[in-house]
């Protein structure tokens, strides 16, 4: 599905504070599974996730999506692929304040030029699926943490991506909400979507929902473990 070959990423390249956050990573993400990147703070999880999710380009190395090399693509094309194939959920949810839940959800659909009516229809279906239909027109800043998270999930799914990427998605949730969230991820994976998340929350890493765990340290992959082998 998604393969990385010898990925290296530098920050402040060529300057005195040059820092290599990733030092040669090779991995392959399996389709329709939940994969977790874990590791201590500063080990490069988020950096690796941005490269997996086409948010950033690696300084060196190759990224292949369904066999196609996309590592050298300029932002214009990378974004196009990202829009089509990836949905994102962030730690702070990153919803646009002042807009209603539904308006937030359809934002990723704007650049695709999909007619508004169609976007709204899709968003309503997603909201209903998350039991949020009654909060459709509420401003996002009035929603509870769990509701915000579910709105963020709806937004990640609006363009119907194959891969869902989440950075520390449970950091702002209590354990009950975290468990609910993981259940939703399971459901999505079983529906055929690939899910990739980062976390150092044992609740997530050791959850029954997770199929594979990648352990990172100092920008290097030290361990890959398949923890569950359920049929998708």
């Amino acid at each position, binding site marked *: 599905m998604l393969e990385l070959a010898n990925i290296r990423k530098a920050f402040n390249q060529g300057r005195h504070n040059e820092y290599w956050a990733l030092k040669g990573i090779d991995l392959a993400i399996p389709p329709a599974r939940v994969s977790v990147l874990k590791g201590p703070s500063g080990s490069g999880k988020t950096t690796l996730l941005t490269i997996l999710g086409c948010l950033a380009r690696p300084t060196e190395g190759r990224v292949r999506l369904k066999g196609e090399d996309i590592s050298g693509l300029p932002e214009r094309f990378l974004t196009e692929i*990202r829009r089509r194939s990836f949905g994102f959920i962030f730690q702070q949810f990153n919803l646009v304040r002042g807009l209603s839940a539904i308006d937030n959800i359809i934002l990723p659909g704007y650049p695709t030029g*999909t007619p508004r009516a169609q976007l709204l229809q899709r968003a309503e279906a997603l909201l209903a699926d998350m039991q949020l239909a009654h909060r459709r027109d509420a401003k996002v800043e009035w929603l509870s943490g769990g509701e915000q998270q579910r709105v963020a999930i709806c937004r990640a799914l609006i363009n119907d991506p194959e891969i869902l990427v989440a950075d520390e998605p449970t950091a702002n949730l209590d354990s009950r909400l975290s468990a609910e969230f993981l259940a939703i991820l399971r459901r999505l994976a079983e529906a055929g979507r690939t899910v990739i998340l980062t976390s150092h929350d044992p609740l997530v890493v050791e959850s029954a929902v997770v199929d594979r765990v990648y352990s990172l340290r100092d920008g290097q992959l030290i361990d890959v473990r398949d923890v569950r082998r359920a049929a998708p």
Partner: protein
Amino acid sequence: MNRWIEKQRHLIDFTASSLARRKGKSLGLLVVYTLLVFVLASVSLYTHALRNEATRVLAGTPEIVLQRLIAGRHDLVPPGYVEKIGRMRGVQKIEGRLWGYYYDSVLKANYTFMVPADRNIAEGEITVGPALERSRGLAAGNGISFRAYSGELHTFIVTGVLAHESELVSADLVLMSEADFRRFFAYPEGHYTDIALWVANPQEVRNVGRKLIDALPDSRPILREEVLRTYASVFDWREGMMLALLSAAILAFGIFAWEKAAGLSAEEKREIGILKAIGWETGDVIAMKFWEGFLVSLLAFLLGYVAAYVHVFHFEFALFAPVLQGWAVLYPSFALTPRIDGVQVATLFVFTVLPYTAATLVPIWRAATTDPDTVMRS
């Protein structure tokens, strides 16, 4: 194509709603922007209207006016001059004209007394301009007396009032018959104030002028095109001066716009970061910001221009009249004929929208090229 249009609609939607979400900031910008357009457009519309008025007035006047000079001063044209010019090639019509000024000590105002060539006025009657109608409360049928410079009192019956639309020329006019005119001013028989010549072909005007000087060396031909040119350059010069002074304002505006755009609030930066992270491309953000600039500029331009139009043509330039004393008291009350012209609008556009666009270009680009992964690192 459909997708493209749909996308632009989304972007416009989004930018309109984000302007509405930041009311304070958007309104501040809009007010300053509108004010700038308003001030520039007022000055520009006013000078143009004045110039048009002058041009229109001149359009009805003869191509050449011949004055007689004595010791370099304007004097009466003695008898025989009109005949002496006689038939000259290219001259359509020659006419001796009678006009003069009269000081009305009641109102402490100057009137222009004139014998019209294009209408007959019976002896003892006059036709007056709108200014007189107003200030002395005259209407058709009323009688009015003027004390001539000789001391005699002359009484006339008002039989008509001139049309209002071009008060610039007709405001202070008093039209009367030739006999009355000569009697009132004790004007010597056969003399004229000046001679008007109509020339059909504009290319001939200069030749005719030259021949007139040859034939009558003590006279001075005044060509209409020269007057027109002088007018044009005087008005342009004044407008140019005004605008140059105002360019300081434009500069300030440019800096203001830069600040507004560069000083994107933390909230706005966060928003753009989110948009980029969820799949908006740099070009999409730029397009969105372009629409924002377009909407703001369009609104400010329209509001400012319409306000200026109302200001100039309905409130007679009241706000700036005191600043521009020299022009404003020249013609105390006359409605300018509304007119909009392309050069003027394009010029205004360059003076207002261009600085805004140029000033916001780099800040927009900066914001739009935010790395999509920045939101993950807050």
